[in-house]
C-alpha cells in the first residue's frame, strides 16, 4: 500500500492542493458576501443558508462557464443545428483555447527547469515569438496561405529560440545569472514589440494604437470545427503534440538525458564527460523555441492581430503551472486545462453571482501556495505523518555487503 501511495504522490499533492484551494476560496466568498452577512443579526439561519447557496451557485456557474450548460447541451443533442451545437460547445472550446498558450509556456518553463536553469523569460520569448510570426506573415501577405502559415510559425519558433539562446549563452560563457538576464530581456522584448508595431509596415491602417494589421485577413490557423463563434483551432492539438514531444525528448533521447542530468547535478554531469554549458544553452534555446511557437499559435490562431497585450501574463503563470505539474508534460497539460477552465468559467460566475473575477486569481494563488508547501497539505490531510524530518530510513536498509 505504501508503495502505491508513493507512486501516486506526485499527483496527490496537486489534486489535494486544488481541492483545498477551492475550500479556502469558498471562505473568501463567505466573508465577502455582505448581503448575507448583513442579515446575520436578524435572520441567522436564512443568512447562513443564503451564503452557502451563494457558494454553490458560484462554483456551479464556474463549472458551467468552463465546460458547458447541460440544458444547452441537451438542446443541441435534441436539435443539432450548427447554432445550437456552437452554443453548447463554446464554453469547453474556450477553455481549451485559454489552455493552449499555457501549455506551450508551461512546457517551455518545465524544460528549462529540467535543465537546471530558471527561465523567467518565457513571457518575453512568447511575445517576441508572436511578433516574429507577425512580421513574417505581413511580409508574405500576398503569398499563398499555407506558405505564410509555415514560414510565420517557423519565424515564431526561431525568434523565441533566439530570445532564449541569449541568456543561455550568457550564463554558459560568462556566468551571468539567467534570472536577471531573462527578466531584463522580457522588458526588451516588450519594447521591441511596441517599437515595431509603430512602424507603418506592421501597424493597422488608420490606427494610432500599436496594433498590427489584421492577420486573420490573410492567414489563419484553421479551426478544428468550423462553427460560428468557435475559436478552437489546431494550435491546441499542436500543444498536445508538443507535450508528447517534450516528454519523449526528456526521457527517451540522449540529449534529454544530458539535459536532465545537468539539471539535477551539474557536477556529476561534468564528471561524466557531458558539456555543462551545452546543456544550459540547449535548455534555454528549446525553452525559448517552445514559447515562441506558443506565441505564433496565439497570434495566428486565437486573436485576430498582434498587439502588446498578446500575452496576459502567460509566461509568468506558466512558472506556477510548471511547479504545480512538477515539470511533467502530462501534468502541464492537466494544470493548463484547470487554469484555462478557471479563466473561462470565472466570467460566467461574475455575471451570475457578482463575485469578482479576482476570486479566480485568489484560488490560483492558493493552489500554487499549497503545491509549493507540500508539508502543509501533508499535515492538513494527515498522511505520511510518521515521516520525520531528518530521519532517513533508506540509509538504514540492507547495508552489509
Amino acid at each position, binding site marked *: 500500500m505504501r508503495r502505491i501511495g508513493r507512486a501516486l504522490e506526485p499527483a496527490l499533492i496537486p489534486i489535494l492542493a486544488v481541492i483545498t484551494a477551492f475550500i479556502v476560496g469558498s471562505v473568501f466568498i463567505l466573508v465577502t458576501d455582505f448581503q448575507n452577512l448583513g442579515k446575520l443579526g436578524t435572520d441567522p439561519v436564512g443568512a447562513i443558508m443564503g451564503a452557502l447557496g451563494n457558494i454553490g451557485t458560484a462554483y456551479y456557474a464556474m463549472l458551467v462557464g468552463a465546460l458547458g450548460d447541460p440544458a444547452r447541451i441537451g438542446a443541441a443533442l435534441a436539435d443539432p443545428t450548427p447554432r445550437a451545437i456552437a452554443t453548447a460547445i463554446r464554453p469547453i472550446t474556450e477553455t481549451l483555447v485559454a489552455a493552449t498558450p499555457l501549455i506551450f509556456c508551461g512546457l517551455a518553463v518545465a524544460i528549462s527547469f529540467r535543465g537546471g536553469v530558471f527561465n523567467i523569460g518565457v513571457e518575453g520569448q512568447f511575445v517576441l515569438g508572436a511578433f516574429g510570426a507577425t512580421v513574417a506573415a505581413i511580409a508574405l501577405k500576398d503569398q499563398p496561405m499555407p506558405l505564410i502559415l509555415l514560414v510565420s510559425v517557423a519565424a515564431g519558433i526561431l525568434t523565441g529560440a533566439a530570445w532564449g539562446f541569449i541568456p543561455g549563452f550568457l550564463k554558459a560563457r560568462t556566468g551571468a545569472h539567467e534570472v536577471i538576464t531573462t527578466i531584463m530581456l522580457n522588458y526588451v522584448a516588450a519594447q521591441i514589440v511596441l517599437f515595431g508595431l509603430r512602424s507603418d509596415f506592421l501597424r493597422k491602417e488608420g490606427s494610432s494604437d500599436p496594433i498590427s494589421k489584421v492577420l486573420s485577413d490573410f492567414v489563419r490557423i484553421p479551426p478544428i470545427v468550423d462553427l460560428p463563434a468557435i475559436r478552437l483551432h489546431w494550435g491546441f492539438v499542436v500543444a498536445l503534440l508538443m507535450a508528447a514531444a517534450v516528454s519523449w525528448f526528456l526521457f527517451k533521447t540522449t540529449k534529454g538525458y544530458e539535459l536532465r542530468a545537468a539539471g539535477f547535478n551539474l557536477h556529476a554531469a561534468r*564528471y561524466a564527460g557531458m558539456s555543462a554549458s551545452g546543456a544550459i544553452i540547449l535548455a534555454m534555446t528549446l525553452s525559448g523555441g517552445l514559447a515562441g511557437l506558443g506565441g505564433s499559435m496565439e497570434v495566428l490562431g486565437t486573436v485576430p492581430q498582434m498587439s502588446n497585450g498578446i500575452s496576459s501574463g502567460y509566461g509568468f503563470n506558466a512558472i506556477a503551472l510548471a511547479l504545480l505539474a512538477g515539470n511533467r508534460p502530462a501534468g502541464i497539460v492537466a494544470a493548463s486545462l484547470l487554469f484555462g477552465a478557471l479563466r473561462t468559467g470565472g466570467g460566467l460566475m461574475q455575471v451570475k453571482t457578482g463575485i469578482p473575477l479576482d476570486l479566480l486569481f485568489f484560488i490560483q494563488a492558493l493552489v500554487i501556495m499549497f503545491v509549493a508547501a507540500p508539508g502543509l497539505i501533508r499535515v492538513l490531510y494527515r498522511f505520511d505523518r510518521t515521516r520525520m524530518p531528518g530521519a532517513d530510513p533508506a540509509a538504514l536498509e*540492507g547495508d552489509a*555487503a
Partner: protein
Amino acid sequence: MRLELRDITKRFPGVLANDRISISADRGEVLGLLGENGAGKSTLMNILSGLYRPDSGEILIDGTPRSFSDPRQAIDAGIGMVHQHFELVPVFDVTEAVSLGAESVSSLVGTFDRKTARARVVELSRQYNLDVSPDAKIEDLPVGVRQRVEILKALYRKSDILVLDEPSAVLTPTETEELFGIIRGLAAAGTTVIFITHKLNEVLEVADRITVLRRGRVAGTVEPEGATRQVLANLMVGRDVKLTVAKGPATRGDVVLSVRDVHVLDDRGHAAVKGVSLDIRAGEIVALAGVQGNGQTELVEAIVGLRPVDSGEIVIDGHNTTAFSPRRVSDLGVAHVPEDRMRDGLIGAMTVAENFILDTYHREPYSRHGSLNAKAIAEGAATAVQHYDVRTPSIETFAGSLSGGNQQKVVVAREFSRPVKLVVAAQPTRGLDVGSIEYIHRRIVEQRDAGAAVLIVSTELEEVLSVGDRVAVMLGGRIVGIVEGPDATRETVGILMGGGG
C-alpha cells in the same frame, strides 16, 4: 552508572533502527560504540541528544530516568555532542564560537560578557590540554583544532557526558593521536566519553569498553584487552570478514599513466600541484597517500580532464591527454571513481538505471542515433546490480535513497562495466562500512589482475598500506616519497605524510 540507556527502541517507517539497545558508561569511562553505517549508532545518539524520542526504553542519568523532548534539555543534563560536521560560525573567533547560545551576559541590557567567556575558554583549554587560542578566527583554524573547539564548546556548557561522532574522519594520523590524548585526559578528569566510530583500531586504542551494534541491535560488548580487530569486525558484520586485502604480487606491464612534471592550479588560482611526476604500469596499484588538501584532488581532476594542466604533460596509454576533455579521457578506457560520490559520482534524483549509464549513455547499446534504448539500459543495469551486489529495491529506485556503500557500488559498477585500462579511484571507501570496503577493494584488485593500471587516492593509512603495490606520498603539492609495497609500513608512510623523514 553515570549514563545508562535501557532497551531503547526506535522505529522508522519500514525500519527498526534501534531494537532494544542497552548501553551504559560510567564516570571517567570511554565507551567505544562500534557499528557499520546503518547499524543504528546515529539514531541512538540522536535519541540521547534529544533530537528523537524513543518509541520505548529509558535514558537514565545517575540512575534517574530522564526524557528529553529537545536538545536543550539534553545539554542541561550534561550531554555534549561533537558532530562529524562541525557547527561553527566561520567568521567568529574561538571565544564567540564557544559561547554562542550560552553567552555570559553582563548588565541589564544583556550585553555579551566577553571577558568572562574568554577567561573560561582559556581555563578550559589549559585544564584539558586543548591548546586553543581564544582569539583565533574559526575559518583560519585547521580541522583538527576546529574539532577541539567543538569539544571546548561542550565543556563550556558543563557537559560531562561527551559524545564524539566519528571524530577521526577528518583528521590526520597525528591529529588523531592528539585527539586520543585529549580523550584520555577528559576521562581521567571524570568525563564520560562515548566514542562512535566504524574504525576498529581506534576503539581498540582508546576505549575502555566496546559495544558493537549490528542492524539496530547490540551484537556484543567486549573489553579491548584480548579483543582483536578480527573479532570486532566479525561482530560488526555478522560473518567472517577479510580485513587484509587478498592479492598476489603485481605483474607489471607497460606504463599506462605517465604524469610528467605536472603543475595544476586550484579554484582560487593558487598552485595546488607543484611538479608531480609519476608512472603507473599495467597490473599495479599505486596508492597516493597524503592528508586531505595536499593537491591529490587537483591532480586527479587533471588526470581525468576535469581541471586544466598549468604546465607539464599527462600521457595515458600512449596518448598525450594533457588537453583532453573528460569525455575523451573516459573514452580511452579510464574509469574514475570520484572523491565525493554524492556530488560528482551520482545523480541522487535519478534512478539506479539512469546512473548506471551516466558515462556510456551516448554509446551503443544504450543509445542509437540519439535515442535511448530503454531495454538495453534496463538489462545492463539489472546485470550490473546483480554482478556488483548492489542492494536496491529495484533499478528504478533513486540512487540518492541508497546507503553509502550501495551508492559506491553503483559508481564502481558503472565505471568497471566497460573495458578499463586505467582506474583512478579517489577515496573509494570513505565513509563505507567494513563489508563494503572489503568488497570495493576486491573489485579494484580484480581490475589490477585483469591488467589495468590503478591509481588509488586515500587519506586512510590502512587502505594505502593494504591495497597499494607502491605507495606515493603527497605533501604540499609534491610527491615527497615513493615506497615499494614491502617497505611501506605505518611508520614510513605516516612520517612522510606528516612531512618528516
